[in-house]
């Protein structure tokens, strides 16, 4: 129940909120995209979020982020992602992903957030 007379605060909290932060790349530019969805059109977002293997995250510690051969780090200037999602139930979820990990369902979610984000 919202008692606040401010009309903006009167709108109900979004059912789903997703934030994607992309850093790195040769430019080292950090870009942020986010989307919020009301309960009426949350189902599509919930499907996208549930499809991602959140429990397998921790990309930062995964040697796949910069695949190594012996002690030699390989590759440079790839993107790095942080993704967070809030849904009607359960705790907020977070994941840190290398570009190569941001594939499959992660890529689908990231692309959808970018497409729906104001800029």
């Amino acid at each position, binding site marked *: 129940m919202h008692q606040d007379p401010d009309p903006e605060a009167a709108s109900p909290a979004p059912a789903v909120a997703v934030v994607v932060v992309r*850093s790195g790349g040769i*430019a*080292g530019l950090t870009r942020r995209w986010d989307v919020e969805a009301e309960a009426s059109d949350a189902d599509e977002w919930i499907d996208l979020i549930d499809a991602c293997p959140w429990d397998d995250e921790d990309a930062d510690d995964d040697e796949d982020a910069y695949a190594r051969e012996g002690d030699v*780090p390989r590759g440079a200037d790839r993107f*790095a992602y942080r993704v967070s999602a809030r849904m009607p139930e359960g705790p907020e979820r977070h994941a840190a992903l290398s570009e190569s990990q941001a594939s499959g369902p992660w890529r689908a979610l990231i692309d959808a957030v970018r497409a729906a984000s104001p800029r």
Partner: protein
Amino acid sequence: MHAIVPPYLLARLAEADAPHLADAAEAARATLALPRVYHPTLTDLDVSVEGDALVFEGSPSPDRVISDAQHRENLPGVRVRAEGEPAVADIAVDEAYDGLGETFDFLWDAFRRASIDGTGGRLEATVHYGEKYDNAFWNGERMVFGDGDGEVFAGFTGSLSVIAHELGHGVVEHSGGLAYRGQSGALNESIADVFGALTEQHSHRQRADEASWLIGAGIFTAAVQGEALRSMKAPGTAYDDDVLGRDPQPAHMRDFVKTTDDNGGVHINSGIPNKAFHLAATALGGYAWERAGRIWYLTLTGGTLTPTTDFAAFAAATLRTARAEYGETSEEAAAVRTAWSGVGVTIGASGS
């Protein structure tokens, strides 16, 4: 005259003992020593007349292959231009081909290094990677270039410093590597920028005080308020834009940025060693690759760095190189020490 020299001619040149053919013989021996398991060795042979002598000078020539990902994200893509083939009707392909050639020439002319691996290995690049892909990267084997989204980035192959930067990552890896995280990652980035800036300066025959010291000039669209990705001369000033924000690079250790993004700020804190290189190069003057560049290159390839080398250890290593190459009390050693001190990286009195 430029030609691909057949091995029998190289062998004869290598065995020549006439004094006036000494350079040619040495070059021929070096060329013959290059491994050729994976590729034929290409060599440019310059023949000139000096007095009554015929002078042969050999130098390695690049072996480039450019592929087109056709806007997909699969590598390598379709092979569209190989070494010696004529230009094609695709500016990204030709810019990549030419940029790899400029970088190859720089490495050989400045450091007598034959290609990324030092043994004349093939240079491979892929263009048109992905849809509106906003990046250029090194995947451990090849350089990969997106076309940009047309809103922030207008493409990446138009900047020689970007092409040489990616190739520089290859040189770093072949020299033992610097882990791509935190300070060692920022050094990896900075050394790639040094290769980028020096290749551009070498291509334009610019002295240290004439150069822009910009990385990626011209790759932003006209809509972006900014002239380049980074400035080695003035880190933190390359762009200041409504959407992108302000260039976050520090130029001094007191402004070192702690972050988990960007692999621990590897493209951000590289501003500190970038500025140190700029200070050393401008203090010494002349062509930056001749002394400052040589000191950095010999430090990278000297076998004393570890994958987790930090700024202080790298600074001490550059000072040791400068002392070994130019003398304990040389102006080069003094310039290196002063440069690092100028960005807040102190080297102990013993140089360690």
